[in-house]
């Protein structure tokens, strides 16, 4: 076995320090020791997008990152979106507009949209599709997801909030 490494990262605002084997992928670290199973694992080669999370505010495939690479990073997973007061406006929009059926792909879609809408609160359809193209959904046919995005844009605008709170 290879030399263990100590990693320290902040996940959804909570700091974790752990010994890991270098080959542990970030998604396995999140789902295993941290028990954050909201992030899904599909293909493990970057294609499906189910494992998409935010690393220092930017989307990344957590199946294509090692936990050791995230040492010192700030991570947001789908578990970090809702608050005790309620769901995130993007989550709420997905429910209302049927943006999911089986829900396997949903965490990845949500995280990708958090990045998009925090950088660009009023994206064009082309910009939205560029981002959705990086996520695979085998149930919805995408039209209801596109509707959910438009609904989320409106909700965020009405509430006057950013899709992503500034990192600490």
């Amino acid at each position, binding site marked *: 076995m*290879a030399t263990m490494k100590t990693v320290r990262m902040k996940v959804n605002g909570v700091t974790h320090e752990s010994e890991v084997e270098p*080959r542990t*992928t970030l998604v396995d670290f999140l789902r295993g020791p941290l028990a954050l199973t909201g992030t899904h694992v599909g293909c493990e080669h970057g294609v499906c997008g189910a494992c998409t999370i935010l690393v220092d505010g930017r989307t990344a495939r957590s199946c294509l990152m090692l936990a050791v690479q995230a040492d010192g990073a700030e991570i947001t997973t789908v578990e970090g979106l809702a608050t005790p007061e309620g769901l995130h406006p993007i989550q709420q929009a997905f429910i209302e507009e049927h943006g999911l059926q089986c829900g396997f792909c949903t965490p990845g879609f949500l995280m990708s949209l958090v990045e998009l809408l925090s950088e660009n609160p009023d994206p064009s359809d082309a910009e939205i599709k560029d981002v959705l193209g*990086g996520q695979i959904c085998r149930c919805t046919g995408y039209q209801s997801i596109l509707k959910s995005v438009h609904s989320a844009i409106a909700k965020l605008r009405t509430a006057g909030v950013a899709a992503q709170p500034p990192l600490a």
Partner: protein
Amino acid sequence: MKPPPFEYEAPTTIQEVVALLQQHDGEAKILAGGQSLMPLLNMRFARPTALIDLGRMTDLDYIREENGAIAIGAMTTKRSVERSDLVKSRQPLLHASTTWIAHPQIRNRGTVGGSMAQADPAAEYPAVAVALDAEFVIAGPDGQRSVAASDFFITYLTTALKENEVLTEIRVPVLPERTGWSIQEVARRHGDFAMVGAVAILGLAGGSCESARVVLFGVGATPQRATSVEQALIGQAASEALFATAAEKAAEGLEDTISDVHASAEYRRHLAQVLTRRALAEAAERA
């Protein structure tokens, strides 16, 4: 699908990177954005004894203009290239080609150096590098050397990088005056690797083609210059008819055209011609 065990190193200087490569004597792999290497590890196609992560090498992350070229640090992400105003204004072909690569989620982490070193035959950046006569700066045990793009891509997934060397910078000349450019590709879905792609750069003077460079990707082991197309253009008056006849030569001289589940060799040769014609027409409009 989990990676085999390996040691992990995260050096912060080029000297350390080279020393670590030497120490592992050809058994270590450099890790950049991981967007090509991690799938290979997850599928156990690669079994390095150690990974040397360049992720902490922040001084390899830059884009600046120097002596008529855009100098890009190997660890610069595609996201940074895509959003760089310098690249947009001084080397728009590089900007446009970046938007064809994968998806925003992949471009956030994938690096320029990683795409060049990976040398995928269907990748955009190697073709753009060959079309623009980019230069590759490499560090190794004997110091620094530089290699021209035409000598860098050797065959499938193989470059001029030697075992203990690391790519540090790519220099892309800025686009000359009165020069138009275009990148065209056909893929199953936007963001997938190209079945075939074409890059054209056309210099016009008084309506005639003064210089021409056409490079195809996704057709052979490396980006291929379509020299017969280029020769058919030089000195001729630019017109749709000229581009159509010149583009017919795009499949000439293509060696061992790729044939796989995505497309037959015949279809790829057909696409090479169609995309060359479209690329020439668009480049002429921009010149």
